[in-house]
């Protein structure tokens, strides 16, 4: 099947397409901002939109590995870094919107928020944890770290994703539809991993026992 084993050229095209698609939310935001279509509270709208797309990108990034497994599309892994970097990109925009537009560098108020507001207490470190992952995303650093250490470090993404959903959870006033969707998707993405891990664990046990017999 063509989708299973595309050649390098096709993958490059897919990558370019995904790159452009991932920029659509930002372009939309920019266009709406330019034409003054962000509504009565533009800062709130920008904060919500960038936060929303940070979570979406995180979920899509986390979907790459299980999808590769289920569909057998090995090349999906080659999109994962770019998707993760987009999550970091929108997360950075979200963070900067808060610091610059929302608080306008009111550091005492920002510090107070981080200490006192649970949703920021969990959201802020979740963002900070994305930084080492972004910094260690190049081939050179990955090689320098070594695969094992790199994988250990990048398991932080699970913490970041959970933190991101909890951050959203503690901020929602009443309507949890969107939040519940994110929580369910994350539960599935983490559940699939748990399933594969358990299965491997059991298989290894059985093999070990078989070897003994």
């Amino acid at each position, binding site marked *: 099947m063509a989708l299973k084993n595309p050649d390098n050229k096709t993958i490059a095209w897919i990558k370019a397409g995904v790159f452009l698609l991932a920029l659509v939310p930002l372009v939309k935001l920019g266009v709406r901002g330019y034409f003054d279509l962000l*509504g009565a509270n533009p800062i709130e709208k920008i904060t919500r939109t960038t936060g929303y797309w940070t979570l979406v990108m995180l979920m899509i990034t986390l979907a790459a590995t299980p999808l590769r497994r289920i569909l057998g599309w090995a090349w999906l892994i080659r999109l994962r870094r770019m998707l993760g970097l987009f999550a970091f990109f929108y997360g950075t925009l979200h963070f900067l919107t808060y610091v610059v537009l929302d608080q306008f560098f009111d550091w005492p108020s920002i510090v107070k928020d981080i200490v006192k507001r649970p949703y920021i207490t969990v959201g802020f470190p979740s963002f900070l944890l994305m930084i080492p992952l972004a910094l260690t995303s190049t081939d050179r650093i990955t090689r320098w770290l070594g695969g094992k250490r790199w994988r250990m470090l990048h398991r932080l993404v699970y913490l970041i994703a959970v933190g991101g959903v909890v951050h959203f959870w*503690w901020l929602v006033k009443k309507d949890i539809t969107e939040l519940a969707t994110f929580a369910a998707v994350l539960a599935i993405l983490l559940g699939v991993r748990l399933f594969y891990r358990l299965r491997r664990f059991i298989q290894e046990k059985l093999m070990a026992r078989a070897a003994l017999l």
Partner: protein
Amino acid sequence: MKASKTTGINASEITPRELFYARRRFMQMTAGASLAALLPRQLWAGDKLAGVQKSAYTVPEELTPYDDVTQYNNFYEFGTGKEDPARNAGSLKTRPWTVTVEGEVSNPKVFDIDELLKLAPLEERVYRLRCVEAWSMVIPWIGFSLSELIKRVEPTSKAKFVEFISLNDPEQMPGQKSSVLEWPYREGLRMDEAMHPLTLLTFGLYGELLPNQNGAPLRIVVPWKYGFKSAKSIVRIRFVEQQPISSWTQSAPSEYGFYSNVNPDVDHPRWSQAKERRLGEFLKRKTLPFNGYGEQVAQLYAGMDLSKDF
């Protein structure tokens, strides 16, 4: 079957087309005009309200533009998004509309909305509106003090609180198909709060009848409390002895208290209330105690611990 070719009517007997339509138009016009003359004039959302006096209860602050006031709303009966009410409130029918005033009163009465409109002279008052979500507006409301209505129904000595009940009709209010809050929306005030001249029984804004998304055909506006205390699309006003439980208090008692006075020193458990963003402004401004109406209302709460009675 074969149709007959001749009708048996002379051409001269046929009324010319233009004349036929002219006559028909005339009939329609006169019928419409006489019908309109027979019926009392009905007011519809967007209609200008006449004979409105300017009120001294006016803050000298820049008004929030009409489009923002009418397109950025929290009105969960029409959806939980800020733009949902403007989009979905078209299904609300505000005429005919009655308001039942009942409970601990000597003169319980069912008021027709157009009768209520004429109960007292309409005033335009420019109030600040502070939402519990830390944004604010400045709105020119039209109405009269709720006390005008209260005086007429003569509350008994047992009337300690006033409860406001909004319309409950998922057909007209599609947001009620979701159980995000318990419907109907209920709010309440203590009797002295309800009698305070600032508490406005509101029919309009910006010189016209309330748009549906702003709580048509009538709402209350309590400018020193967070916006959710000001019940919209009210169908029932009940005078009671026990403190009523509002929809928001019921949904999260630790977050939304009965009083819900604007208070920069008492934070919402999950976010700060010290500052607010006035829509249209970039930098946040400091939130004022009682939303800047402390001089008029602070004495209502003398001796109370407002961090407990939040």
